[in-house]
């Protein structure tokens, strides 16, 4: 039942949420100069062998940025991809900074809110009664090999 509900994308709500902060967020996204100076402020980036997927700007561009770019074509697969970025690649510690003052955490937080509104959640291994516990591989505890 939960899964059926989650399969449906509420486009009206989704558009409404995107439009609510559209001015600010699109301005922030469009003025990101892709300098990469935010990279080392992320401890996950530093802790994963400086994997570019953990760069704060990369996470914002590939989560909220994609939601704005593909506004009319958002499907569940896209939200699942974004879930990986905004929950597994970011813990929202809010330590990332940008020389231009772009507020990356608020972008990730907004992407999370949008995903939650569509029934897509970050599932942690210890979650009880998690709707996607079965078959979900995104939030399982990583083995030691994953960190290599």
């Amino acid at each position, binding site marked *: 039942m939960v899964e059926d509900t989650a399969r449906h994308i509420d486009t009206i709500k989704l558009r409404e949420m995107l439009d*609510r*902060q559209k*001015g*600010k967020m699109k*301005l922030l996204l*469009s*003025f*990101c*100069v*892709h*300098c*990469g*100076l935010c*990279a*080392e*402020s992320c401890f996950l*980036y530093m802790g994963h062998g*400086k994997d*570019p*997927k953990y*760069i704060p*700007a*990369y996470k914002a*561009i590939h989560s909220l940025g994609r939601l704005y770019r593909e506004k009319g074509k958002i499907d569940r697969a896209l939200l699942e991809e974004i879930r990986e970025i905004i929950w597994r690649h970011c813990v*929202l510690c*809010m*330590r*990332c*900074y*940008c*020389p*231009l*003052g*772009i*507020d*990356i*955490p*608020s972008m990730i*937080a*907004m992407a999370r*809110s949008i995903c939650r509104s569509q029934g897509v959640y970050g599932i942690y291994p210890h979650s009880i009664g998690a709707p996607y516990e079965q078959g979900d591989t995104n939030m399982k505890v990583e083995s030691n090999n994953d960190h290599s």
Partner: protein
Amino acid sequence: MGLRYRVYGGIIFRVVQFFALSRKKNLLYPCTKEKGKSQSSLSPEERKIHRIIRYQDSIIGRYPVVTVATSLFHVLIFIIPLFLLAHNNLLYESWKIRLPSFTEPAADTLTIVFLGLAVFFFFRRMVLPRVRSLTTAYDYAVLLVTASPFLTGFIAYHQWFNYRSMVILHMITGEVTLIAITFTKLGHMIFSFFPASWWEESIASGKGEGPGSSVRG
């Protein structure tokens, strides 16, 4: 209406847009400023440690070379055209006003430094994985648009190739750059003055509650 007025109109529009947006409250989460906490309660040693940590955690502490390079690049992009003798002569002919000018060898040297820094940023985009992963063709195009007026001006000054064609190309690239400020990410020229010091989320110039303060619940 002349092109230049439309260009300046576009820049003014961006400034107004920024002000309009910055007045809005963050609709996601309320801002929770921690009041009453100051450094005055810390001992001098603690304050020193605080300063060291803050420095090491800052962009200057992490990327000193890029900080110097980018600061110089951004200063030069303003001062070279503004204090160039040839530009000031034209300004005098039009409006009978004249700004202080660099000597020609000094302006020439600064232009070479600027172009060298543009090359540095170009290779930085290509070589560093963290920057390459974020870079698109658009970023290279923006860098080219930024550097092209300086390159064409430099070539025209030295009268390499056809002088007349090069001066016309210099004027066209200059106009394109000014237009691009409004419509591309070069808008950070205007934008970066404001959020860095005014937005509550920003820590870039030492003011504010740090990134994401509006998310703290």
